[in-house]
Every structure is written in structure tokens, then in C-alpha cells.
């Protein structure tokens, strides 16, 4: 592995008592990449980010961010990174502009530069009109955008976004995605993004790592990971009591994949060509079909295949 990569993690562990929140993870993020760190709540995403952003000391292993060690050169790491935390950690009593100014002072940005940069960032994240209002009056989306602006005031080379869109409405979410893309494209900022949304990782990330139970279970480009899954997923709604019978009837057609209650999902060997065979098999078994769909391999399938279960709150939950 190259030690010049903006993020380089080797055998990183963090224990809380006997519990391993992060268990021996390795990863490397290349310069200018958007890296998606995907996993359910409690998987170890935030603990990893806290270690990489110097907020927590690793139990063992090491990590370098922007070329500096997160333990022995924590101060240099802090100078090089921008962080937008989960829940937009901002003081509601202060105004957006005051918070930007404070952040600039904390990062040693000169007063002149801070003024120019604040205006530019406020414009950029669409908060110019609200910059003198107290943050308590901001909507969730506005807070996240301010948080992003604050994390950029000192022009960091590495940006950490910890679940940046959790709790946001679809419009605000897509606006934030656009901004992250623009940043990455225009300034070549390396971004490590943690998320529990498959769609977010799919939309934004050049590479992703799936973390589960403190360990990285898959890592690679989303397209490559999806390709590796191979067959598309067929999802058939058969009613709760018929799921096992349907599974038996479809055994020959492909391996079963995790699905919602009352449905059966499997990786359909041969893809669309075998869809009719699946319908026939269920018909022969006297099982009624309420709904059927065939999807190309998705990150959800990658996650399911890697962990043996579906990701809570994944986009498919809403659609199926």
C-alpha cells in the first residue's frame, strides 16, 4: 500500500471493554477519490471516523490521514481535514456567519481570507440570505449545508462526511450530493463519506467499503462489486405463509437472497431468460404470485451477499 494516500489505515482496532467496535480494518483511499463507508447503525463507521479525525485513540493498529499519523501527529491531521459530523454539530445560539468566523479562527485562517472564504462558501451552499440568522431558525437541510461550509473554511485536503444526509428530505439530500460532487470535481478534495443509504453510496462514491460488526466485509468500486454478484435478483411476493414452500419450489433456479417478509428473493441464474421458469415453478406448486420484479445486481445485493441480511433503512424498503 502507498503511504502517500490521503487516508491509509492498517490493522486498526478499537475496543470498548470486551466489545470490538472496530476490528482490524485496513483501507486506503486514493487522492481525489470519494470513498463510501457503508454499513448499518453500530457497524463501526462512526468509531472509525472518530479515530481518523483524532477524536478517539485506536486500541491498536495505525492510521495516517493526509500523510500524518492520527495519534502522534494529531495536530497536523486536524490542520488538514474538514469534518461534517452526524447531526450537524452546530451551536443554535450563534448565526451562520459567526460560526464560520469561529471555525476560521480555530483553524488559523487569516481574518482577510476568512472573510472572503466565508462569503464564497455561504454563496455556494445557498445560505447567504440566512447567514445572519441564528442557527436555531435553520431547517435540517440548512444546518447540514452550514456544517459543510464550516468544514471547508480552511480548505482541507481530506473531507470527512459522517452520515451527511441522515434525516434530510429527498430534495435537500440531492442538493447536498451535488455539492459534494462539485467540491470533489473542482478542488480534487478527497472525501470519506459514511452512510447507511445504499443509494447515497452508489450515487457518490468512486469506491466503497462495507463494514459490518466492526470488520470490512467488501471493498471495491460499486460497479465491480455489483458485477461480482453476477445474476440479477428476482423478488416475488407470495404471502408470508407461502415463503418456505416457494423457496423449495425455486431451489433449482438460484441461491436464495435476503428479502422482506412475505417475499422471496433469489439470484436468478440465467437472468431474465429464466423468469418464466420461476413463474411456472410457483404455479406448479400452487403458490399465488402477488407481485414480481427482476432487478440487476445492486449494492443492496452486494450488502446482502456479504452480510447475509438486508441493510435496515435501505432504499428498497420503501419501494418493495
Amino acid at each position, binding site marked *: 500500500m502507498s503511504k502517500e494516500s490521503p487516508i491509509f489505515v492498517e490493522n486498526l482496532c478499537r475496543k470498548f471493554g470486551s466489545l470490538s467496535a472496530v476490528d482490524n480494518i485496513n483501507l486506503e483511499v486514493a487522492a481525489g477519490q470519494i470513498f463510501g463507508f457503508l454499513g448499518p447503525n453500530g457497524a463501526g463507521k462512526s468509531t472509525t471516523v472518530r479515530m481518523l*479525525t*483524532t*477524536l*478517539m*485513540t485506536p486500541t491498536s493498529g495505525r492510521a495516517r490521514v493526509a500523510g500524518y499519523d492520527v495519534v502522534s501527529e494529531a*495536530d*497536523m491531521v*486536524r*490542520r488538514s*481535514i474538514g*469534518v461534517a*459530523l*452526524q*447531526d*450537524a*454539530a*452546530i*451551536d*443554535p*445560539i*450563534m448565526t451562520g456567519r*459567526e460560526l464560520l*468566523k*469561529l*471555525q476560521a*479562527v*480555530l*483553524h*488559523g485562517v487569516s481574518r482577510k481570507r476568512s472573510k472572503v472564504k466565508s462569503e464564497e462558501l455561504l454563496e455556494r451552499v445557498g445560505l447567504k440570505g440566512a447567514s445572519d440568522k*441564528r442557527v436555531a431558525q435553520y431547517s435540517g437541510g440548512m444546518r447540514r449545508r452550514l456544517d459543510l461550509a*464550516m468544514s471547508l473554511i480552511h480548505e482541507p485536503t481530506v473531507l470527512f462526511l459522517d452520515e451527511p444526509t441522515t434525516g434530510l428530505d429527498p430534495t435537500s439530500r440531492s442538493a447536498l450530493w451535488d455539492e459534494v460532487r462539485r467540491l470533489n470535481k473542482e478542488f480534487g478534495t478527497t472525501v470519506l463519506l459514511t452512510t447507511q443509504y445504499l443509494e447515497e453510496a452508489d450515487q457518490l462514491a468512486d469506491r466503497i467499503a462495507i463494514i459490518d460488526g466492526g470488520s470490512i466485509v467488501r471493498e471495491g468500486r460499486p460497479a465491480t462489486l455489483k458485477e461480482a454478484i453476477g445474476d440479477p435478483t428476482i423478488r416475488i411476493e407470495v404471502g408470508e405463509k407461502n415463503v418456505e414452500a416457494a423457496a423449495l419450489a425455486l431451489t433449482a433456479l438460484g441461491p436464495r437472497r435476503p428479502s422482506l417478509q412475505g417475499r422471496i428473493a433469489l439470484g436468478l441464474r440465467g437472468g431474465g431468460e429464466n423468469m418464466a421458469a420461476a413463474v411456472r415453478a410457483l404455479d406448479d406448486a400452487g403458490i399465488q404470485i402477488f407481485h414480481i420484479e427482476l432487478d440487476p445486481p445492486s449494492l443492496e445485493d452486494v450488502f446482502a451477499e456479504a452480510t447475509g441480511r438486508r441493510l435496515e433503512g435501505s432504499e428498497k424498503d420503501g419501494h418493495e
Partner: protein
Amino acid sequence: MMLSIVGIAGRGVIRTIRMPSVLIQSVFFPTFFFVIYIGLYAGVITLGGFGTSSIENWYVPFMMLQGASFAGIGVGFSTSLDISNGFFDRLMMSPVSRIAILVGSIFGGLLRALFVSTVVLAVGLIFGARPTSGIMGFFWLYTAVVGMCLASSCWALGLVYRFKDQRIAPLFPIGVFMALFTSTAQVPLNVSTGWLQTIAQRNPVTEVLGLARQSFMDVGVTSAETIDGLIALLLIVLSLGAFAWSGLRRYLG
């Protein structure tokens, strides 16, 4: 580092100004209790041994220190809030030295303490307290005010850095209350009895009160009282400062 301290302290000042209810509360209690105590215990002064024949003179310095101490623990409350909403993590992720974070946070409380104690002093003067020792008396009085604010800030911060939880907040005032009231806050050593007398003799706050009260005592400022008070104050501030500092270092654990 200076700029960072100013930045963090400035935020403390902005918060104080924008949350007047907190400021009003920190002024209300010491002034209210001052007025109550001088009325309620007016007759107690006849026992003698207080170093003054004015109950107002006896209570003003104590109430100023009480106001300053409670203003100090306000720093703990706002930091516990910052920790719960994640803002404190933002400070910790900035390249600012940890000492600047500690000093900057305390500074906001210090300004509040000076304001509160000055209001209490003004009320005391209105109600009849009469200073006896001129500028030097006031100098040591305000030294004690600043010291007690620093001490109580460090006490609250030490707890909040260690426990990282707002539920620890009720302990802030309890600690301050215990430390203040088990001293010569209400009556001098020769008037107190039993366990209180035993503890008050050993409680360094007694010496700090001695330092502060010089401005209103009949004998005025004496070097013995000043030196004892300063040593006690230094001891309290340094030990609680170490408590806060080690808590901050442990925060990242």
C-alpha cells in the same frame, strides 16, 4: 493560540448575551439570598467575633464569591450541552491547543462572574454595606472572585470531560454548595460549633473568604490574611485546574 482563546471566549460572551435568562438567574440568586440573609440573620451579628458589626459587610463578599462560583459552573453546563450536540467534538477536531480550549471556555464564565459579583456588590452597597480597606481591599476581593470562578469552572469541566454526559450536571452545584457552606460562609469559626467548625477550620474556602472579606472588615487588609488566602486560593485553583486538564486529556480516550 491567543486568537483561538479569544474566538472560543467570544462565543461564550455571545451565548451569555443571547441567553439573558441565564444571566438573570445567575444574578438573581446571590442578590436574593444576600437580601434574605441580611434580614433573616441580622440579629446573629450581636454574638460578636465577626470582625464587623454590620451584617451587610459580613455577607457581601460571601455572596459575591457564591455568585462567581455559580457563574463558573455555567461553563460546565454549556460545555455539557456542547458535548451532547457534538459542537465540542468540532473544537477538539480543530488544530487549536487543548489549553486554549480550556482557557477559552473558562473565560466566558469569568466575564459572567465579574458581572454577577459586581451587581451583588452594588446591591450590597445600596443595602448598607460599607467598604473599609480602599483599593487594596477590592483588589483582593476581586482576586478571590476570579479564583473561585476559575475553581468552580474547572470543577464542572473536570466532571463533564470525564463523564461526557449532561446527567452529571446536578453534581456541579452540589460540589460548589458543599465547599462554600462548610466554610465560614455563615458565621466565623468562633461562632460555629461541632462538625461544621471542624470542617470549616480545614476547608481552604475559609481562607479564601478571609482574603475576600478584608475589604469589609474593621481591621482592613492584613498581610497574614492575604497570604493565607492567596495560598489557599492557589491550592484550590491548581488542584481543580489539574482535575479539569486531566479530564480533557482523558476525553479522547
